[in-house]
Every structure is written in C-alpha cells, then in structure tokens.
C-alpha cells in the first residue's frame, strides 16, 4: 500500500510540472476514417517532455503507440489536438527530430555503406560542411562501437549492429528530440541489454531528449526517468510514473533492486488493468 501511495504522489509531480518543455503533446487524438466505420485509435493524449529527459511510453499491444509516434514524428497529422516541438507546432517531419524505427533492416539504405547511411541525412542539413559531416559520422560510429564498420554494407552486419547503425545515424543528426519506436523488439535478449545500456550512455553523454516507445515493461522501467502508461485503444494516458531509481543503472544491480521490482510490478498491474479495459473515469 505504501508503495502505491508514493508512486501516485510522484506521478502527480511529473505531469504538468513547471519549467521549459521540449515536446508537448496537447489533447492529441486520431481517428482513422477508413471504408465503413471510422476507427478511433487515440482519444486524448496530453503529456510534456522536458529538455534532456528520457521518457518511456508503454502500453498494452495495439494501444495506438505507433499512431502516437507517427503523429509526433510528423509522419501523420492528428485529428484533434497538436504536437509542439520546442514551441513550434509539428505539421510535417520537423528538423530537430530523428526517429529510430523498429525494422532496422528496412530503415537502412542497403545500397549505401554504413558511413554513407549515417552521413546521408546530414547532407540536407543547413550549415554543415563536408569536413564537419565526416567528423559527425566518425564520432557517431565511434559512440555506438562501430568505428571499424564504416565501409561495410548494413546487410553484412548482424541485426543488433544494424540497429546500432540506425542509432548512430540518429545521433549524428544532432536532434533535439530522439524518437525510438520499439527499437529493440526484433533483436535477441543479450543484444537487447547491450543496446539498452547504449541508449542510456548516449543519452547521458549527449544530453538529448529521448522518447522511447516500447511494449516491454522491464525495459521501460530500466531505461526511463518517467514511464507514461497508456490505456488500450482508444488511447488515453493511464498514469505518468516517475522512476526514482539511481541515475547510474546497471543490468545486474538495478534489475535486482527492490525498488525496481516495485516499480515494475506497479507498471505491470496498470497494464493488466488497461488490458481489461480499465480507463480513467474522466476519459470514459
């Protein structure tokens, strides 16, 4: 019982807190008007991400996570509400955002080498000379541990390494906000742990704002400073949980801490509720 009350309190402090906001999602909803009946995928989402925060979004499968992400990325426009990136309404893919997709194998250009893949988005970015581009590519590949693989083609690498290339590409782009769409759902468990630590360390080093969408409850608690739990579709925010684990996280010690287990159990219970169709009273 005590666990619950502390979590509820911390959650109240997380959303709507004062201070600058990097990414603001305001009353966002999306209804697909297909043939026949319209499908309401997302009903009403409101949350804010502060600069430099690492926020995870987790929800039951089919809860509209992908719709939310595509709206934030500007790949799709919401039916109601808006997404605001650093004070500017998103109405197309914004300049200060990079997306890492789940399907790493299909989001890298197979006819370009690893270096060329990382360099490509920089070519259309204003104010970056050739020398600086080279530098950014080298730094990004170094940061993900692929400094040696620049001349190889993506399909010559393992799945985990391919996703590292996609992460390097996003990092080299120097985004204000980094969106990650279930990036590790398709890699094996060991690679996954490595990549989770990579995301934490890059986030620490670069100070970038990260929005990480996942269906993996453990992953969301391990990675995030906050976990936003979504209801099932039509989606609303169920709870905004502050993850008050020490900043220095480790696959072994963090995951065996009592607090980790508490938070994990709490998020798990809320997801189970969401699966049974529980919704906040106001959202009906």
């Amino acid at each position, binding site marked *: 019982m005590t666990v619950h009350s502390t979590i509820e309190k911390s959650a109240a402090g997380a959303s709507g807190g004062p201070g600058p906001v990097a990414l603001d999602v305001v009353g966002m909803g999306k209804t697909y008007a297909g043939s026949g009946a319209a499908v309401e995928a997302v009903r009403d989402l409101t949350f804010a991400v502060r600069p430099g925060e690492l926020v995870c979004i987790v929800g039951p499968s089919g809860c509209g996570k992908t719709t939310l992400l595509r709206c934030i990325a500007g*790949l799709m426009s919401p039916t109601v509400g808006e997404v605001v990136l650093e004070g500017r309404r998103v109405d197309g*893919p914004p300049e200060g955002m*990079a*997306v890492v997709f789940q399907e790493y194998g299909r*989001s890298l*250009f197979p006819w370009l080498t690893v270096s060329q893949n990382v360099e490509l*988005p920089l070519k*259309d970015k204003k104010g970056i000379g050739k020398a600086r581009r080279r530098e950014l590519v080298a730094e990004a590949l170094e940061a993900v541990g692929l400094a040696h693989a620049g001349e190889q*083609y993506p*399909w010559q690498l393992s799945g985990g390494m391919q996703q590292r290339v996609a992460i390097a590409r996003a990092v080299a782009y120097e985004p204000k906000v980094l969106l990650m769409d279930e990036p590790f759902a398709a890699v094996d468990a060991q690679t996954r742990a490595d990549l989770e630590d990579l995301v934490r360390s890059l986030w620490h080093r670069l100070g970038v704002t990260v929005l990480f969408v996942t269906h993996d409850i453990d992953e969301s608690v391990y990675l995030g400073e906050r976990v936003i739990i979504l209801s099932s579709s039509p989606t609303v925010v169920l709870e905004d949980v502050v993850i008050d684990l020490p900043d220095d996280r480790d696959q072994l010690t963090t995951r065996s801490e009592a607090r980790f287990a508490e938070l994990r159990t709490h998020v798990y219970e809320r997801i189970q509720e969401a699966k049974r169709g529980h919704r906040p009273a106001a959202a009906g």
Partner: protein
Amino acid sequence: MTGAATDVVRRALLALTLPVVLVATWWFATAGSTSFYWPPLADIATAFTETWTGERIAADVLPSLVRLTTGLAIAIVLGVAGGLLIGSSRVLRAVLEPPMELLRAIPPPVLVPVIMLFAGIGDGMKVAVIASGCVWPVLLNTVEGVRGVDPVLRETARSYRLGGARRVRVLLLRAASPQIMAGARQALAIGVILMVISEMFAATNGLGFTIVQFQRSFAIPQMWSGVILLGLIGVALSLLFKLVERRVLGWYHGLRAAQRKA
C-alpha cells in the same frame, strides 16, 4: 591453383561445352554439303573473315550499333523518367495504365511502317523505332520498382527530410534499380531485333540491310556470316550488360545472398 580460380575455370568449361559441341556438329554435318542454301561451315568461316573487314565494320556494323545505342539510351531515359513520375502518382497510374497496357501489347515491328510515314527513312526513323519499342519494358518496370519502395525506407527518408533531387537519386532510383535493370535487359533484346528489322525496310547501310543484300544476290555464305555476326554482337552486348549490372546492383546481390543465409 586456388579454389576460387579452379571454380572459375570449371564454370567457364561448363559454359563453353554446349557451344563447342554445336559448332562441331554444324562443322562436320555440313563438311561435304553441296546444298546451295546450307554451305559448309568452313566456307561460311572463310566468308566471315573476308566479309567483315575494317571497311565493312565502319560502313555497316558501326552505323547499326550507333542507332541501337542511341535508341536504347533514349528509351532508358524516357522510360526511367516516365516511370518515376507514374510510379509516384496514384492518379497518373489510374489514368495511364490502361492505355500503356494497350501500347505495350502492340508488337514493335509493326511500328516501322507507321514511323516511316512521319520520320522518313533516315537514321531518325530507325532510332525512333528502336526507342519506341524499347521504352515499354523500361517504363513498366520502373513504375513497379518505384511502387515497390519499402514503406519503412520511405518513412525514414521522410523523417530525415530528404528532399527533391536527393530523394529521387538516393531513394527512388536506387531502390528501383533492380527492376530498372531487368527492364533494360529486356529492352536490349528488343532493341537488337528492331535494329535489324528497321534496316531491312529502308536503308542504305547497316547489318540488317547488308544481310538482305547478300540474300538477294545469292551470296549465301556471306548471308550466313552476317547472321553469325549478329549473334556474336548479341552475346557481346549481353556480357557488357552483365558487367554494368554487377557494378550497379552489387548491393542487391549481396543483400539477397545475406537474406538467403539468414
């Protein structure tokens, strides 16, 4: 010898076996031939070396090849440009697909008399015939290639705001290149046929013209040697094409091999 080298030699031997057998069969079957229409291959070989000397190559072979490459180049440029446009627009596809299917179904050789009516009987006519026949496989394959670009890759390009010319060059053209090359290979075969046919109708030089001239003047060994030369040119062109393809589609073959292994 290394394993790879022996492998190459073995494959070359396998590839050459059947041609050697066929030529030998032809050689011995016609060795004592007295038929006017089936002269001994030895006679044809002699005619070949006598007929296709430097002068004739400059006068007949070269003009043919220039027409072929010009026509093919026009077809590929138009086909790829049109394919990019049509492949990118659902509306254009809906409007243009039925008439395109009809035009493509017309056997290209029947266009020769039609095109002669307004393009005359000069080189322009022959190039127009070759281009108009070769454009369809390139166009239709490019449309398919552009339509088939992986949606995740499209979204990636969009989210990184890849724009205009770079999007066409790095995303669409490269993604469609396997289909474009397949179309170009079909176009090459059609092009050789149209080159010969257009030269048979109305011409003063060229391979098609020369072969018909030999036939009409009953120079049968020379006629056969022209047919053999056409075959050899076809083989040479397809080898050249393979070289280009290996360069352009190296990534594609590597990707496919990696996917098969996985």
